[in-house]
């Protein structure tokens, strides 16, 4: 067959040909879109059974709460739908249901960083007018994380903030400011251990750490209107702190690969003087067999410019779907889930940080979770991660450029202006 050599390319090309000629039509289309104007005004007085959707209930706190609610509200029963525990999968599952405008998800639990995106897509019921929720008892930064363009779209449900862990056997009193902490690095040197580490691997944790550095020195990633505001002296000083500490070895070289776990491991092995991490470290560092710092663990608020630093905020919000048929019930359930009683239950049963400021002074709670007073300072001074519908692009912009700046691959101000431009571009849509 002499045509063989010719035929193969032709055959492979056939795929393309088929592609271009056959069938036509197909999916296409664009994402969600459209304001939820009319949907947001509908069913405000609706009462009846609803569904609450949340990620995997690992600490077994939601089920008893729902049972309690159902016992008290036989006509407005809540069905609890548990999603997976993978954040990405939870996100996609919600998107899928909202896009179908399904009324089957009435109340949803949303990560603080998705709140703006879902609000901008018009999927979350604005909590105003008939749907107003009192947030005066809640810590302000947690409320900010649920607010988009001046409107509250969700109720803060649980929170989380960064804590500075330190070696109290080596450091007499915890540093209040970044400069103070850097001054203490001589102690680390004398003991031949690393001085400070956070999470500097290129992932979400770096966004948290870089934003903290920028916010702690008085700068901010986004201004009040959601526009990036990174070309400032304060922002430069903040990111500069990390870059400088990395360059002169106060942040050990290997910290550039640290995520939460690696940094905890290094601290527990006695290789670090200071560690920025989440509250979960407390339990492990004081109980785990291989921990060398069991009795030497000190906790303090993150260091700032002249006082406590500004932690990035973690945690979850709870929101009502605009497509819900029973919004009056949904709002009641929202109030129930953010009540003092519920929040206390969350804290005692699930070690989840409350959003109500009063609970941080509760004696029983503090006895169980000794880090609460420190965490309160941390959350009070916290700044939500950028509240933007383009969070994936914004976090990417921060990670890429902060990473280069810390490693000294580009000057801090170049990194910040690149960050600024990237975020502007993301906001401009594609």
């Amino acid at each position, binding site marked *: 067959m002499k045509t063989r050599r010719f035929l193969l390319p032709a055959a492979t090309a056939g795929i393309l040909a088929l592609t271009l000629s056959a069938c*036509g039509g197909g999916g296409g289309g664009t994402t969600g*879109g459209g304001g939820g104007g009319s949907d947001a005004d509908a069913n405000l007085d609706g009462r009846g059974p609803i569904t609450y959707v949340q990620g995997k209930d690992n600490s077994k706190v939601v089920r008893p709460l729902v049972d309690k609610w159902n016992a008290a509200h036989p006509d407005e029963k809540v069905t609890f739908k548990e999603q997976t525990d993978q954040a990405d999968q939870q996100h996609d599952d919600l998107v899928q249901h909202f896009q179908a405008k399904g009324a089957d998800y009435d109340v949803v639990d949303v990560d603080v960083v998705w709140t703006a995106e879902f609000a901008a897509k018009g999927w979350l019921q604005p909590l105003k007018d008939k749907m107003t929720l009192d947030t005066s008892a809640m810590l302000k930064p947690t409320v900010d994380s649920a607010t988009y363009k001046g409107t509250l779209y969700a109720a803060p449900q649980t929170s989380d903030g960064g804590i500075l862990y330190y070696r109290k056997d080596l450091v007499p009193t915890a540093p209040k400011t970044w400069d103070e902490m850097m001054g203490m690095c001589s102690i680390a040197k004398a003991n031949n251990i690393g001085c400070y580490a956070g999470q500097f691997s290129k992932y979400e944790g770096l966004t948290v750490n870089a934003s903290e550095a920028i916010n702690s020195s008085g700068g901010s990633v986004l201004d009040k209107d959601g526009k990036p505001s990174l070309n400032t002296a304060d922002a430069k000083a903040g990111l500069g702190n990390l870059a400088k500490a990395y360059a002169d070895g106060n942040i050990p070289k*290997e910290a550039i690969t640290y995520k939460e776990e690696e940094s905890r491991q290094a601290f527990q092995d006695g290789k670090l003087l200071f560690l920025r991490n989440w509250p979960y470290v407390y339990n492990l560092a004081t109980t785990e067999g291989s921990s060398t710092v069991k009795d030497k663990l000190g906790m303090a608020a993150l260091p700032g410019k002249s006082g406590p630093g500004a932690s990035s905020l973690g945690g979850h919000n709870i929101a009502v779907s605009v497509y819900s048929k029973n919004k009056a019930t949904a709002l009641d359930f929202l109030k129930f889930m953010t009540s003092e009683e519920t929040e206390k239950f969350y804290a005692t049963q699930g070690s989840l940080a409350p959003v109500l400021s009063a609970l941080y002074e509760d004696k029983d709670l503090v006895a169980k979770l000794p880090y609460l007073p420190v965490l309160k300072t941390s959350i009070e001074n916290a700044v939500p991660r950028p509240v933007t519908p383009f969070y994936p692009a914004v976090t990417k912009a921060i990670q890429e450029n902060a990473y280069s700046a810390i490693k000294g691959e580009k000057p801090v101000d170049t990194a910040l202006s690149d960050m600024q431009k990237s975020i502007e571009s993301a906001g401009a849509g594609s």
Partner: protein
Amino acid sequence: MATELGPTPVKRPASGGTETHRPPKGVGEDNRIKSQGKWATWLLAPTILALAVVIVYPIISAIVMSFQKDAGLDPATGLFVQGGPAGIQNYVNWLAQQCAAPNGGTVACPPGTLGGQFWSATATTFLFTIVTVTLETVLGFWMAMIMARTFKGRSLVRAAVLVPWAIPTAVTAKLWFFIFAFEGIANKLFNTTILWTGSEWPAKWAVIIADVWKTTPFMALLILAGLQMIPAEVYEAAKVDGASALQRFRMITLPLVKPALMVAVLFRTLDALRMFDLPYILTGGANNTTTLSILVINQIRQGFNAAAALSTITFVIIFLVAFIFVRFLGANVVEQSGATPKGKK
């Protein structure tokens, strides 16, 4: 060798040939092709149909999507609005690394955007492909030559090379991530303090080493199969003629193994060009280890339509490489897979 094909007894057209098993060339041949063609159509239909559904439909759908704009924000309300038709803007944006500007129009993508990573991801993809395939070919050849010798424990070696191949890539990636941890065994064994996943070249080498470990066996087995096709007498003869070992390798082994080798190289190349699992789990794409496939996945949640354009570009790149291989380097896969019935010319 297989038999000569006789005419098909079933539904043989009355006009076609004689009752003998060797119909005259010409008319008989044509008829046979026709009747077998009918059979073939029915036998092939399910496969072609299935592939049309699972491959052709998504491609068309992707191409349609790639000409649509992604949803953007209405600055007044802060709510998303539909994008509308985009023409070839998505493609232009990727290829020219253009990003949307705050006041309309486009600007060069600043570092920190996905759009600004297109060419570096392309370069990384090709770097991985060229380095891993080269290393795999050389190492694979070496392994194959060893396995072709007779020695005690040969079957053990042949079994052992299948182990890396049998471990799922996702597990491989986790395993090497653990091996390459700062406190991990790699640094300990070689007494180094390399931040394997923390800086550019070590991260790239980490991916390359893990990939070479995983896929060299495949290469080695294909080459070994090729080696075993070479009759021993050929070497004997060459040796009698006084050819040195190097000459024997260059003049006999290489040319005779070449067809099998080219197919193996083509398969591995196309596989390496779509590399995803390994860098995605091992380095998360950090430190310039983002391949085109990872870039597509990252883009999906930032906008379907731009992602569709990028995946189409990736597809075209891979197609072009396959084309070049087949057209100019003589990796004739179809001929090699030898779908021709034996004994036919």
